């Protein structure tokens, strides 16, 4: 197809001089350099020149609220909070008064304000701003490096909104809106209420995966209130959340749930480096003084301080946990020795599996003793491993470039050999034709094989039988502080506290550990309502493909079928008798509940 173009040239004059004004940037909370902090800027709308002290005061109130909110309170030193007061011509903000939910005692008025904030036309408490270019100009000129924006609007009436930034009024409940919105913009948390069609996506606190062994928050499943909660029916039934009406991302009067806290702490630690500075500089090898030297890292400590510092010299750990170390010259026995400080935030807020590997920051100095000739070798953090484990290999003493048998050329490599392996590395000495070889063998032991199961699901009062299969030791843990070293432990008189995930760990001759888990389901339904139980028939049981249900009482009966993991599979409402086709289900044990009026009963169904 042929397309013809005509070109018009136009000149667009952008006049912004009047708007892009410099304002004083008030520092409400300054913890450090803008580049290594999360920077929040608080703006105000509907405050006149005379009301700017009030705005500053409100900004401080919000900052205090934010910094005392868990887990931001622990990481308060990781944030800077600024405010920029911009005078509005009039005090207060526009209230169109047109929405169905407008407050009857709030005056309807139009106000000329800096960002044009207004209560909503159709949803009253939806307070938004409208002068976006004014906002861009203000931020570009006054605080271009901001990370998060909160706009406080000068109205005592409840309202606010979220989007790419948070807007809320001075109403005392409204500051939680800002914290909720920062959960979205900073940590990319999703809402834990069902926000409607199209709003399901993978986030730290939302997933389509309900498998307890692999779900994102699997490491929290043993703790109170955390589980695998379906978002709702229809499209929402495909999505799961970690808790129910128990998180700021679902309802404003709750704090963040443990999963959202973990994600928040991880996000802060992704953006802010706990190592602020170190000395001396490490760009070049540090030539050691005869009397020895001091090395130090300056750390940004959370409150309480969960940073762990480990030092190693020549790949061997030093017995030092402080932020500085003195190295005597005599401690160096080779020409070049590496000194490494590893810093890890061991906070219990996070249980992510790979947190230590992912988040450990290292600072390495090359210490040189000019009076010792070159000696090139490999140091392994561990030279015997269990299958699946990793170790770091460090090439020590090379003043030049490296070439590993793995193809890598960095000084430290991470190796995860499946079997025992020889690693080699060549050092091409700088300024010469010398090539120095070095090698090391890493021995790998296999993991033990283990499996776990139970004979459930159970009802209250039943006997739980846990079963493990391994060849060495057994070490069970589970809910309600359950512990056992038996192969097949038994728990008598099951109650709801006993439900959850039981994990068995086994250790073989080489010290390698493996574990397996099984979920114990205990139905909280009454064992049997005798009135109903005796008047219900679910047959045949065991069943092949279909079942028949007969209920004596009249009126509608509800039948719900669950799998052993407690997931609802189907439900049916009927009167007195029905037939249900189960051809699509796999053979196995299922649980049903049946209710009629206030009466309820439950049972197991075996499908062959």
């Amino acid at each position: 197809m042929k397309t013809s173009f005509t070109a018009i040239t136009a000149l667009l004059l952008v006049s912004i001089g009047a708007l892009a004004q410099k304002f004083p940037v008030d520092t409400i909370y300054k913890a450090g350099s803008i580049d290594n902090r999360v920077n929040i800027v608080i703006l105000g709308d509907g405050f006149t020149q005379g009301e700017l002290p009030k705005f500053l005061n409100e900004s401080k109130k919000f900052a205090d609220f934010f910094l005392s909110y868990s887990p931001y309170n622990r990481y308060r030193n990781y944030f800077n909070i600024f405010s920029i007061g911009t005078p509005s011509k009039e005090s207060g903000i526009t209230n169109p008064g047109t929405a169905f939910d407008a407050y009857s005692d709030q005056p309807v008025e139009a106000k000329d304000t800096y960002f044009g904030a207004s209560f909503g036309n159709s949803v009253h408490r939806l307070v938004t701003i409208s002068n976006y270019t004014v906002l861009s100009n203000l931020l570009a000129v006054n605080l271009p490096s901001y990370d998060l924006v909160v706009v406080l609007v000068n109205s005592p009436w409840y309202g606010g909104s979220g989007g790419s930034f948070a807007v809320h009024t001075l109403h005392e409940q409204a500051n939680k809106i800002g914290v909720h919105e920062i959960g979205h913009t900073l940590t990319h948390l999703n809402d834990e209420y069902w926000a409607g069609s199209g709003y399901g996506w993978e986030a730290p606190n939302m997933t389509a995966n309900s498998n307890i062994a692999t779900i994102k928050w699997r490491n929290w499943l043993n703790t109170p209130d955390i589980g695998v909660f379906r978002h709702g029916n229809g499209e929402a039934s495909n999505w799961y959340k970690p808790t129910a009406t128990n998180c700021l991302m679902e309802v404003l009067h709750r704090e963040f749930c443990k999963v959202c806290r973990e994600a928040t702490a991880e996000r802060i630690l992704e953006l802010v480096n706990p190592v602020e500075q170190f000395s001396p500089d490490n760009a070049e090898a540090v030539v050691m003084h005869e009397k020895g030297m001091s090395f130090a890292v300056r750390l940004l400590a959370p409150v309480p301080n969960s940073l762990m510092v480990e030092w190693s010299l020549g790949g061997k750990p030093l017995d030092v946990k402080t932020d500085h170390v003195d190295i005597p010259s005599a401690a160096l026995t080779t020409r070049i020795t590496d000194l490494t400080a590893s810093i890890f935030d061991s906070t219990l807020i996070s249980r992510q599996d790979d947190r230590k590997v992912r988040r450990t920051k290292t600072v390495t100095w090359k210490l040189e003793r000019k009076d010792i000739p070159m000696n090139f070798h490999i140091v392994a953090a561990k030279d015997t491993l269990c299958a699946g484990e990793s170790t770091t290999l460090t090439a020590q003493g090379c003043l030049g470039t490296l070439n590993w048998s793995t193809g890598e050329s960095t000084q430290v490599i991470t190796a995860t050999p499946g079997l025992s392996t020889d690693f080699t590395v060549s050092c091409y000495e700088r300024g010469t034709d010398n090539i120095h070889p070095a090698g090391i063998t890493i021995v790998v032991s296999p993991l033990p094989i283990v499996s776990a199961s139970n004979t459930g699901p159970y009802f209250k009062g039943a006997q739980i039988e846990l079963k493990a299969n391994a060849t060495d030791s057994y070490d069970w843990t589970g809910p309600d502080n359950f512990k056992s070293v038996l192969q097949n432990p038994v728990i008598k008189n099951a109650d709801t506290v006993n439900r959850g995930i039981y994990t068995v760990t086994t250790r073989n001759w080489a010290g390698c550990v493996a574990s397996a888990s099984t979920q114990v389901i205990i139905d909280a339904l009454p064992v049997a309502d005798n009135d109903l139980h005796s008047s219900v028939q679910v047959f045949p049981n065991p069943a092949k493909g279909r079942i028949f249900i007969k209920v004596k009482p009249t009126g509608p009966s509800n039948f719900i079928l669950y799998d052993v993991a407690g997931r609802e599979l189907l439900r049916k409402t009927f009167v007195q008798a029905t037939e249900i086709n189960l051809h699509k289900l796999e053979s196995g044990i299922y649980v049903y509940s049946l209710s009629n009026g206030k009466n309820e009963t439950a049972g197991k169904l075996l499908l062959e």
Partner: protein
Amino acid sequence: MLRRSSILLLIFCSQLVHCRQAKSYVRTHELPNYDKNSINHILFLDFQITREKENGAVKAELINAIAGNGKMKDLGSGRGHPDQIKAVHYFSDRRTPVEMFYEHPLSRTVEVFSQDGNLGKSTHTARQGTLSIRFQEDQAREKIELYSVTPDQGAVKIYSLLVKK
């Protein structure tokens, strides 16, 4: 002192697509508040996004451009929206183009907070809105393209901005 500055706007009107897509350029060094003494710069652009009639074509117009000093962290956009504006940044040094997603100004979703603590979403469709974008200046950036992305129409290019030094 801030200088008044100009942005040259070239509009290529296709007779077939009825001026759907505008093309213009900015000279970063001439942007208001551009400080030649600073090493790092952050650029702010505001586009007016309009749709003249229901189901009509989405149009974009650059209405404001300004620079600031310093570095910014890329917080990314974690929130998905059914309707989005996609900005694609092209670089002269063979880097893969970088896509960034923004909420569509003509279909903004805002959270509604009830005083009892319950939350909900409210989607507001409009005929006109502002898209504000911010990014770190990069000597190799050549072009930014904007696409309107909606479930029914897919990605439709609405603007192309050449970035010159």
